[in-house]
């Protein structure tokens, strides 16, 4: 249950060892280890300010750690040369909290931005593929012509996801995808992530606060506390942990409600079958 990376024969997509991040004298991560396996959806939870976003930024190279090694898809990110890094960046997609769409471009053009890096891609084809991505994330066809400021928060997130998926990445990073969505929108988003990751064979690194998302989408959960990854494991494993914060998080009133609704869903699913 504790970090036992060598116990599994599964292929590792992201391998973090001894990561240390600090801002001035404020140490956010210290000697942090984490493995993310290929094809899984890993949910990262932790209190506010425990460094979940910083961890995500560290893996995708937006933040340089002061110590440690980061291996993504078999490449050591910190020692890789420029070309290898650019290739690697095409193999992952990042969705930021509010979508981070370019406000001067409409949704279709936003999705086309990463596609422009593909040599010899015909512009008509590019916009057709962008339309496909827009509709894959569940946006209506006409949304492609809209500008980010004309979209609701949930639609912006979907558009951000479409842009992250533009080049069919193997790895997808999501920072609090359901924060600020209404429960129905959040549940839709959970389903969307789950189904996309299955059909596109994605590995997903998902930072979240949302217990329902953990139940509905994640294969494994990693808890960030005390400056490192405290435990990893399935939802059932989490319920056994007796660390006070972890216990409070997975046994609090909200957690009970989420567990109950997840159980209910499973039962009705069985009845229907």
């Amino acid at each position, binding site marked *: 249950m504790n970090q036992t990376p060598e116990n599994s024969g599964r292929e590792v997509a992201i391998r973090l060892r001894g990561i240390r991040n600090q801002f001035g004298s404020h140490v956010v991560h210290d000697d942090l280890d984490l493995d993310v396996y290929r094809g899984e959806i890993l949910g990262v939870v932790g209190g506010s300010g425990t460094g979940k976003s910083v961890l995500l930024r560290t893996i995708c190279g937006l933040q340089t750690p002061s110590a440690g090694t980061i291996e993504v898809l078999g490449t050591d990110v910190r020692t890789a040369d420029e070309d290898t890094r650019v290739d690697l960046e095409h193999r992952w997609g990042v969705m930021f909290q509010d979508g981070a769409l370019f406000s001067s471009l409409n949704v279709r053009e936003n999705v086309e931005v990463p596609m422009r890096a593909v040599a010899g891609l015909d512009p008509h084809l590019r916009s057709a593929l962008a339309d496909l991505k827009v*509709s894959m994330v569940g946006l209506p*066809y006409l949304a492609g012509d809209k500008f980010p400021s004309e979209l609701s928060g949930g639609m912006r997130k979907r558009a951000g996801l479409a842009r992250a*998926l533009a080049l069919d990445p193997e790895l997808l990073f999501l920072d609090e995808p359901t924060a600020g969505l209404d429960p129905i929108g959040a549940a839709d988003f959970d389903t969307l992530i789950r189904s996309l990751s299955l059909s596109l064979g994605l590995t997903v690194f998902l930072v979240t606060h949302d217990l329902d998302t953990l139940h509905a989408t994640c294969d494994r959960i990693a808890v960030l506390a005390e400056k490192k990854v405290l435990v990893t494991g399935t939802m059932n494993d989490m319920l056994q942990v007796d660390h006070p914060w972890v216990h409070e998080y997975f046994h609090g009133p909200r957690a009970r409600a989420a567990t109950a609704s997840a159980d209910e869903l499973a039962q009705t699913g069985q009845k229907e079958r």
Partner: protein
Amino acid sequence: MDIDITTSGSPVRLVLRGALTIAQVSGLTRRLDTIDATAPVVADLSGLERMDTAGAWALVTLRTRLEQAGQSLEISGASDQLVSLLKTVTDALPQPETEARHPTTLRTRIEAVGKAVVQTAQFLLALISFFGLFLARLARAVRHPSEFRLTALVHHCEDVGLRAVPIVALMSFLIGIVLAFQGSSQLRQFGAEVYVVNLLAISILRELGILLTSIIVAGRTASAFTAAIGSMKMREEIDAMRTLGLDPAMVLFVPRILALILMLPILGLVSDVMGLLGGGLMAWVDLGISPAMFVTRLVEGTDISHVAVGMIKAPFFAVIIGIVGCHAGMQVQSNAESLGRMTSSAVVTAIFAVIVADAVFSVFFAQIGM
């Protein structure tokens, strides 16, 4: 990527090998487009190493085209993952809404012009009602002095007036120098250099001093008003004020616009003095008109009405700048783009309106003979 198309028999055989990703999709669609939709097609994907949504899209588009022509595409040798990817893409394939594009006819153009006119009229009406709101609140402040925000007024006076003095003074000084220099080089041709003093006095006191000051203040202050009020609007602070029983017009608009009304005339005077100073300096250096002579000619040759004409305009310009800036701030929506857009539109509108008003005043004063 390797594509084999055997068109000789029916069905057409299509064999794909290697990687089929977004990098190859242009070549792939070009080849697939050559297949005529006259016979069914069988695609063999057993040799595919990799396919992404772009590749799947190309196949699905081919299938749609064939099916529309009454043919079919059969896919064989696909792995489970490929099948599921093809299904995802098929389900997601956008159905372009075939909404007919409206051609631009004479009618739509006239309609656009009409809309623009109505919008402009509505904008002017909104500004006028904003002015009415300001007057109403000002009257209320007179009747209930306790509701008036004196501290805010003083703060805005410092911001709008005192802090603008250096830039206004420097600009007027330089304009005075330029005017004197250009004027003297023209007047010298007639030996009438000494009229440079009259030229300076009339142009600066009547027009340039207050107009240029207002333009600078419009750029500086209208944008500041819009940004300050707009960012409060954006963060719902204005709504919060209303729920707390505070009147945004009384708290935000009255002190700001009043500060402008008080300060713009003073800035105008500073500008007049500095403009004349710059002009006098240039006249002394370039034409040898001594300061004493400059002052004498200035006092003798200039009617006090010129100063009055300039100064009367100041409060009007102040109201225009203040109203435009505050009104634009209230139009900001909940996104950052609209804040930027409204700020720049406030500056443009304020400067434009000040110049238009100045032109109207010129005609007015000419009519009444001032």
